[in-house]
């Protein structure tokens, strides 16, 4: 006979059974650390693959940039990316980071396996051909998917799976930017949304290992290394103005992206054509302002190296061109992230600001363009992501800019605060919040999302019928411990109303009415009802609206039971305690 409880072992691949069995014997924290290490290494490889692919496509296409048909490259790339995602791999997922946050928030960290590579291929097609986007969103979902699927195969519980998805995201960001601390900050701040000690250790391990893989295969390079700055108090004061300007840049970027995203489907319904047109326009912009194309790292290097072509107006045009190109690429359906474009827009905003300061106050001595370029990167990234810690660590790591930490922190925090006033949610969270899909741990919405109507259903109700006389009703009330009695049609069993004790109170002390008053005369027909599919926040809203303490649950005209406020609050407290215990 089959060994009881042997089900789990029979379901997975034999190759996975042995490590899983051994793993299950370990302490939970040690389990997580081991899995985090594996996921970190795998996500690191995914990021390296992405980087190599981008380098190859850049090398391949650079020689062809001069041809008349070069502007068509982004159009073809974006159309191919959409075709690949929708028709070949059949993964019409949303923005990579948003999908990872959605899965953590609503789906216990479950992400499809195909997402571990589909977004990378889609992004290579989009960015490699010149589209204006970043590689970080695809690698984040790739890392998240790797983590999610490994966690599922190893039968980790939901909370552990969520942590491992965070590990994958952290390792991917750390590897793609060669910035381990940024990976940790990003995973905790933007993805998981909570800084807890239990999260930090596995995420830190994954992040470090992801970075090490990247360093081992691509070398330990600081992408935007800069010279030492001589920063005066005047420059620090100037940071305030730059924070305002970077906040404005990020708000324009987010609003334009949102506008094109929402309108492009109306303007051009076919997705591939929409992406192609968006890509074509980007190609056109690229003809006039080449800095707007691709992920834009060469542009940042020229800013940090103080080699950006002179001219205040040119810098301003470059900022607007990059914002427009990014909004067109991503808003029309191209695959990629907003991280890298934010860095480019920020660096150009910094240059524009510095040149503006020189033009306005030529008698004063200002720090160089590269200083303001770095600060601009921190400001726009922090604002667009609404994640100032990520912005601070990213700039200090990718530019080796620990000497400007104070200025970076100042611009990041101020810019994020200012932009929050106009755009309260990050590009990753806005769509989820709009749909009510962002449920952060231990929040009211999260606790309620774990409860279902059927869990709260109270079935021990005495059912009465419309033709019953008050005398019978009083007898039932004597034996019932509830204040509410559902009324069902005696012929077809359909729910027709409810009786509350208050409805019969006026007649209770007049026995003369016992045989003359019928249930149908005193019952409440105009009732708010609940269906089993209703979600708890809606139900709470109904309780508040109606002032009721109990509401009937009805499905297909049949009474299923009652939900009471007291039971709901009792379950809420238990669920909250369970989540706190985790």
């Amino acid at each position, binding site marked *: 006979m*089959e060994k009881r409880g*042997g*089900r789990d072992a*029979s379901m997975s691949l034999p190759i996975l059974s042995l490590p899983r069995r051994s793993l299950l014997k370990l302490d939970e924290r040690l389990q997580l650390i081991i899995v985090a290490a594996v996921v970190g290494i795998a996500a690191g490889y995914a990021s390296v693959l992405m980087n190599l692919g981008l380098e190859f496509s850049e090398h391949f296409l650079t020689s062809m940039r001069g041809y008349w048909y070069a502007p068509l490259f982004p159009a073809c790339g974006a159309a191919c990316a959409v075709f690949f995602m929708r028709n070949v791999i059949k993964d019409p997922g*949303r923005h990579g980071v948003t999908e990872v946050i959605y899965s953590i928030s609503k*789906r216990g960290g479950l992400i499809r396996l195909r997402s571990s590579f589909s977004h990378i291929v889609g992004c290579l097609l989009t960015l490699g051909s010149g589209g204006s986007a970043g590689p970080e969103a695809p690698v984040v979902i790739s890392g998240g998917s790797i983590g999610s699927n490994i966690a599922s195969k190893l039968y980790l519980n939901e909370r552990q799976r969520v942590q491992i998805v965070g590990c994958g995201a952290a390792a991917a960001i750390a590897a793609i930017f060669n910035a381990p601390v940024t990976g940790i900050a990003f995973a905790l701040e933007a993805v998981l949304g909570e800084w807890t000690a239990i999260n930090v250790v596995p995420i830190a391990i994954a992040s470090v290992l992801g970075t090490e893989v990247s360093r081992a295969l691509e070398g330990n390079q600081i992408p935007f290394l800069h010279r030492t700055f001589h920063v005066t108090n005047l420059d620090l004061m100037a940071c305030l103005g730059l924070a305002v300007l970077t906040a404005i840049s990020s708000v324009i970027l987010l609003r334009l992206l949102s506008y094109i995203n929402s309108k492009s489907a109306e303007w051009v319904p076919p997705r591939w054509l929409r992406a192609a047109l968006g890509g074509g326009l980007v190609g056109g912009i690229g003809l006039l302002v080449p800095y707007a194309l691709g992920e834009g790292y060469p542009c940042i290097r020229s800013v940090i190296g103080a080699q950006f072509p002179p001219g205040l107006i040119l810098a301003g045009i470059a900022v607007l061109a990059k914002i427009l190109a990014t909004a067109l690429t991503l808003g029309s359906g191209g695959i990629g992230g907003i991280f890298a474009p934010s860095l480019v827009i920020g660096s150009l905003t910094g240059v524009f600001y510095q040149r503006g300061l020189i033009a306005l106050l030529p008698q004063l001595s200002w720090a160089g363009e590269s200083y303001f370029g770095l600060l601009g990167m921190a400001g726009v990234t922090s604002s667009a992501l609404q994640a100032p810690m990520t912005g601070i660590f990213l700039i200090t790591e990718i530019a080796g800019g620990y000497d400007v930490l104070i200025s970076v922190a100042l611009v990041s925090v101020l810019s994020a605060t200012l932009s929050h006033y106009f755009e309260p949610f990050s590009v990753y969270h806005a769509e989820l919040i709009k749909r009510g899909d962002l449920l952060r741990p231990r929040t009211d919405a999260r606790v309620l999302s774990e409860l279902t109507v059927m869990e709260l259903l109270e079935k021990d109700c005495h059912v009465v019928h419309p033709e019953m006389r008050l005398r019978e009703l009083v007898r039932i009330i004597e034996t019932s411990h509830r204040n509410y009695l559902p009324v069902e049609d005696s012929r077809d069993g359909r729910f027709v109303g409810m009786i509350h004790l208050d409805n019969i109170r006026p007649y209770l002390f007049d026995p003369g009415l016992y045989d003359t008053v019928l249930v149908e005369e005193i019952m409440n027909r105009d009732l708010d009802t609940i269906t089993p599919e209703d979600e708890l926040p809606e139900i709470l809203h109904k309780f508040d609206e109606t002032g009721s303490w109990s509401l009937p649950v009805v*499905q*297909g*005209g049949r009474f299923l039971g009652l939900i009471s406020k007291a039971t709901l609050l009792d379950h809420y407290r238990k669920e909250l305690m369970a989540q706190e215990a985790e």
Partner: protein
Amino acid sequence: MKNQLLHVFENTPFGREIFMQSLYFCKMTGLHLKVLIPNHPQFLMYFSREVVTTNLPKSFFTGAETAREHVENLVQAAGADASFVEPKGYTASTLPDIPVDFSFMTCLRAMSDLSSKLHLGYIGPEVRNIIKNAEFPTLIPTPIYKEWKRIIVFFGGSQNKVKALRLGIRLQLLSGVPMMLFTYAEKKPKTYYEEILEEHNVLSGIKSGGVEWLFAEKGHFKEVLYDVPTDGLIVAGAYGHGLIKEVLFGDLMEEMHALLPNNMLIVGPHYKED
């Protein structure tokens, strides 16, 4: 949602037959039918450990404007209790998440594969994926509407088959039709299976309830299937140890489907009894 059967409606004559099978199942068991009229070519089901993506063929979108009306007419004609499923969560704007907390789900033998593969005896990979991950049993009806007059539980002795047996007993109680056990002995004596039933406290009920037990000791599996009545709803476990694990997801399962013209209710490894 407990006591509900999920049906993904295909607005074609073939889809109508399958839908009528679901209606009949609900009517016999008193379940509430939840009907999904798909608006997108894919949907996701987030099970406890895996996300199953189901790709629907174009036939599911035939006459989209009449689908709702057809469902309502069929439900009314059958006098069944039904309502529509409206997806609330979306992984992407064109990728709805379908709830997974139903008691049963109806699947075509191949829900989303090429029509060339859609023949008797073929279970598509996505249907297998649903069976593998779902906490509910999966109803795989015959392509033509067929009422069942009894419940036939394929009992092989494993944990999952015991679950299937309990489900069969529950269905028998709900529907009031007779139940029958079918066992392919696999070189083990009948007492071995009786001990398992005794261990699970169902043997006495089976004996006193007059449940017929078709116990096949000789012959190849394909040959003994000949004795299985064709008017029964087969309830079988999948992914257990031993025979059915090999049978259901190997070539033999294809043969079983090809040879048996019965409606089937498959209990997967993650099935949770109510």
